């Protein structure tokens, strides 16, 4: 667009205002988490801590296990979930991207139909619970719902068909390389951008995951950060049963905000470095597969 000066000024000022609106609520959360209990009880949550205190964080880290274990489980779930998901998605997407594979359209249809129609949560809850006995295992946080998204399969297939020419692969085939070798040695290096994008999106999904936990996890040893938040939402005292052996008095007003900060901060700190891939991924995804 050919902008007038007025338009430029307008664009910058509105974007600054919108950015502030997006960030400021988080500042309230952070500020409240480092305010002393007494000051919060009198003045409520405010944007500037009147009396700084790290009591809430001290409480959370007092027994040295609770929060660290929750972080550990969150990181483990994110790592395993993202890796397994990337492997499964890549394998499926690559196989149906090969033009001369009989039945590839049938497979693609099966993937696609699963995106449009689902049996709903009731049957799948009963299946995971009663047939697979997934309750209170690490699998419960990783396996149901998230491992293979049809959307990412189709997005990746599109990338493979348009970016990896069959001729290059054909020449390697003549040299006698097996299909798995070709995939690992040739295709994967060429597909780094799409792998980074899907990996990033899946990592965010797993980091933020709480619905599987809501349905399948009641053992507090398996709580991720998000699940601790979920337990505390209606009752801040819930942390007492999760963090046992802490003799301090519970700073019940600030503790909520402190846990929320711990759940949000890692993603907010890491994201700016990967923003490019994320934005690109959404743009690719918008183009029909």
């Amino acid at each position, binding site marked *: 667009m050919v902008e007038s000066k007025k338009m430029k000024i307008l664009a910058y000022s509105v974007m600054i205002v919108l950015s502030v609106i997006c960030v400021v609520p988080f500042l309230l959360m952070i500020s409240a988490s480092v305010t002393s209990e007494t000051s919060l009880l009198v003045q409520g949550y405010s*944007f500037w801590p009147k009396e700084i205190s790290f009591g809430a964080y001290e409480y959370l880290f007092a027994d040295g296990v609770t929060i660290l274990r929750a972080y550990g489980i969150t990181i483990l779930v994110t790592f395993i979930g993202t890796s397994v998901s990337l492997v499964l998605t890549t394998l499926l997407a690559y196989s149906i991207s090969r033009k001369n594979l009989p039945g590839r359209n049938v497979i693609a249809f099966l993937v696609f139909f699963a995106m449009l129609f689902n049996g709903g949560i009731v049957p799948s809850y009963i299946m995971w619970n009663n047939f697979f006995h997934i309750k209170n295992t690490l699998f419960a946080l990783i396996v149901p719902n998230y491992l293979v998204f049809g959307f990412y399969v189709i997005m990746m297939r599109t990338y493979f068909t348009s970016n990896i020419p069959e001729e290059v692969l054909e020449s390697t085939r003549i040299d006698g390389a097996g299909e798995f070798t070709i995939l690992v040695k040739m295709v994967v290096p060429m597909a780094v951008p799409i792998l980074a994008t899907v990996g990033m999106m899946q990592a965010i999904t797993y980091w933020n995951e709480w619905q599987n936990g809501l349905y399948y996890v009641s053992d507090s040893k398996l709580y991720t950060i998000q699940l601790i938040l979920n337990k505390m939402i209606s009752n801040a005292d819930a942390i007492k049963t999760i963090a046992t052996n802490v003799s301090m008095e519970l700073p019940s007003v600030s503790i909520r905000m402190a846990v929320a900060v711990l759940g949000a901060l890692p993603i907010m700190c890491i994201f700016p470095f990967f923003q490019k891939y994320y934005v690109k991924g959404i743009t690719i995804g918008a183009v029909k597969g």
Partner: protein
Amino acid sequence: MTRKRKYNWRRCLPFYLMALPALIYIFINNYIPMFGIVIAFKNYKVTKGIFGSDWCGLDNFQFLFRSPDAFNITKNTILYNFAFIVIGTVCAIFVAILLNAVKSKVSRNIFQTLILLPYLVSIIVVSYVVYAFLSPANGFINTNLLGGLGKAPVSWYEEAKYWPFILVFVNVWKSFGYNSIIYVATIAGFDNSMYEAAAVDGATTWQQIKRITMPCLKPTIITLTLMSVGRVFFSDFGLFYQVTMNSGALIDATGTIDTYVYRGLMERGNIGMSAAAGFYQSLVGFVLILAANGITRKLSKDNALF
């Protein structure tokens, strides 16, 4: 002939092996539960399992549709979605046009990162942020804003009338950055010579937006809107469950099909009605997606999903 086929089969085998793990997963995760929807027509007993339980015909549906809940959750789900679609789309386009007017790449990236932050954190964190504002005893609005103005505090989580606005605001706040990305990319792809020619002829910025940007965006707007319309029967469970803190006083104003199914299954133990509501959502939702895609196909074949 047979020889050639054998050769082909051997060549294709590795690809089928590659597809197999993910297909098994999709079969278990997506297809088996599809057969499980028969549970909506059964009097489910845990001891007898899905297929062993007795048929009860349409009893579950009768209970569901005779209760006032069915109408209410359908209405809420659809109305909230329409508000999200209309307001969300307008905001996304507005932001996309402004972002494209920011020419410095660094500033644009900073803006884009900042407006994406609310989308990246989990909905639970968002509900804590909302709670920091609305908590009756300590929330910023009651203590600092209303208190400062000398007004009486409001018990936000008990007053249903505010929640349609709160939820629409929270949803738009959380997702406008994400929704604008596709429009930003689309606008960035427009041929700049159109704008240059218009500028030479003396078109103002507003005229350029109205006569060039908007008409060129029309196909994208139509496609994305139709895709969202296809999903009006599904709601963001986290938004309606977590952000309202599952408060009983708000259920009439904020209950959707998804929260109803959850509460039936996990809180009230009413699996039959829950399954009936889930079946109703899957079926109508599926029909709506097909219809939306059909319309998109009629309008422009390239933009249809299938």
